[in-house]
């Protein structure tokens, strides 16, 4: 009876936003839900992968064995995308796992920025959307690697404390050999006892934790990230409803403007990298090839939905730097492609 009443409340006038005369708000709410239900499974896949990695290799020895070389590091991080396929939302928990377990920062950043493109699912969807444009199938992963190397190189110029979130940094220090942590950073003396006791069980131990504990840990990680995803989706849905998309595609024919407008569109639309190629297909004929590539390159690295998720890894200044530098590199790549193909 109560259920019936509740259902009728949900499905009828009382909560129907359109009846309240706020059609735009109702559309925004639907867009928000669409973005959320599309991204949430991918986020969960990412959390599942990082939990699996935590279970299989609790000490994370393989993570610390990844190369720290300024070029090889980001490249090997990018290549990890083939082994750990997830789109950009799913990549955040995995990148966090890599950083916590003491992976070289450049390697983890290489993974964070390039793996959303360099994975079988995304490459297959790009091929499915553009089977007659082989250049795009080559240019997308190449561009993604270039951006990842550029961003990793740039962000490594920042000191760790200005790059990574303090909580993450603290967890990370527990996985690093004591010799790599400066005396000032050691909050708990020289014997290497866990700082603050917040992360000792997982980060410090190399014993395989029970599966239930890994699941519980994954649940907490999911909730934390889901909340950030909710915020990102809300912003993206609001901006999408307020800014007519025609404004963004109207300048399709102009080489530079078309690139800039599609870069802006990729920031706003915020769909996952595994499906964005199909979206790009929709306006590929209206815009320059460089603009299509720019759309496919920038979205996986930075968009409104991701800003919240990145805040669990990077400090605001580093996120701003990432956005600025990624935009610049994508613009240059787009211009170069237009120069060749137009």
């Amino acid at each position, binding site marked *: 009876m109560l259920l019936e009443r509740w259902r009728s409340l949900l499905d009828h006038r009382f909560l129907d936003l359109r009846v309240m005369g706020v059609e735009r708000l109702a*559309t925004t709410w639907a867009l928000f839900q669409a973005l959320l239900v599309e991204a949430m499974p991918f986020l969960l896949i990412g959390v599942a992968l990082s939990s699996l990695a935590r279970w299989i290799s609790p000490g994370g020895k393989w993570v610390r064995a990844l190369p720290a070389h300024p070029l090889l590091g980001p490249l090997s991080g990018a290549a990890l995308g083939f082994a750990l396929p997830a789109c950009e939302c799913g990549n955040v928990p995995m990148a966090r796992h890599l950083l916590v377990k003491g992976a070289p920062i450049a390697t983890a950043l290489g993974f964070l920025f390039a793996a959303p493109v360099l994975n079988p699912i995304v490459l297959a969807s790009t091929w499915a959307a553009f089977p007659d444009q082989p250049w795009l199938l080559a240019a997308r992963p190449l561009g993604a690697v270039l951006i990842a190397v550029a961003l990793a190189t740039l962000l490594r110029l920042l000191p760790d404390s200005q790059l990574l979130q303090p909580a993450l940094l603290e967890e990370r220090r527990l996985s690093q050999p004591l010799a790599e942590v400066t005396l000032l950073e050691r909050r708990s003396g020289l014997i290497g006892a866990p700082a603050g006791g*917040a992360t000792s069980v997982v980060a410090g131990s190399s014993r395989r934790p029970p599966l239930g504990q890994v699941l*519980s840990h994954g649940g907490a990680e999911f909730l934390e990230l889901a909340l950030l995803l909710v915020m990102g989706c809300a912003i993206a849905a609001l901006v999408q409803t307020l800014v007519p998309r025609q404004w963004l595609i109207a300048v399709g024919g102009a080489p530079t403007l078309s690139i800039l407008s599609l870069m802006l569109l990729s920031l706003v639309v915020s769909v996952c990298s595994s499906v964005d190629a199909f979206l790009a297909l929709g306006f590929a004929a209206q815009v320059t090839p460089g603009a299509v590539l720019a759309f496919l390159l920038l979205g996986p690295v930075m968009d409104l939905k991701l800003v919240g998720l990145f805040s669990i890894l990077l400090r605001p200044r580093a996120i701003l730097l990432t956005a600025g530098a990624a935009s610049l590199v994508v613009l240059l790549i787009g211009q170069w492609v237009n120069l060749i193909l137009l």
Partner: protein
Amino acid sequence: MGQPDPALRSRPQRSLTLRRLAPGPLKALALGLWGVALLQSYLSGRLDLLLRAVFHPLVWASGLLLLLLAAVELSGRWRDASRTSGRWTSLLSIGAALAVLALPPRPSFADLAANRQANLLEEPGLSFVLPPAQRSLTDWVRLLRSEPDPRLYAGDPVRISGFVLPIEGEEPHLARLLVRCCLVDAVPVGLPVRWPPDQPRPRPDEWLRLEGVMVSETIGGRQRSAVKASRVVPIPRPRQPLEP
């Protein structure tokens, strides 16, 4: 000595309640609600409004996995002391999941379409052509795009359904939304309609079934195909309103 102070006696009760609320059960509730929200959106058909059917299994499988995580958390046996998501994280998550559960998506297709560039169909055309009366609105648009000469279709019977899309400076079109992934990338495709003069003007976003014939008309010196409607019937929004 003797009887303990009643205030002191109630304290363990209260702390027990607080302990129940924090943070494990809250976390289990948040995970469970997200799981229910995803499953409910699939079971209630809301997902048909939001996402293409090919992605639906991902959503319900995620819902089941989240319920499993909630059960693990609720058992308390494996609770991971090393990572306790804050109480606020759980509370805000519960609020967001409840809002998603309580407020179903009710987008205005006309409003959404007004914000998108129309006619972005990329497909070269139909691989085969159905008889005119069996073509859907999308079939017609694809056909007209691949072979736009209006004289080819003049007099063909038309039976289509869609929503009313207001167009600036002309009569409203009948339209559908094409979706490749989710509502976010929906683009409208529409057909111009000559509405029956003896019937009231259709309301934006209203779902209609039209019967009529294809005619050729000249707009701005250019010939195009339009549907001359002889019968207009209001219909409820279809269960799967988005077209691939």
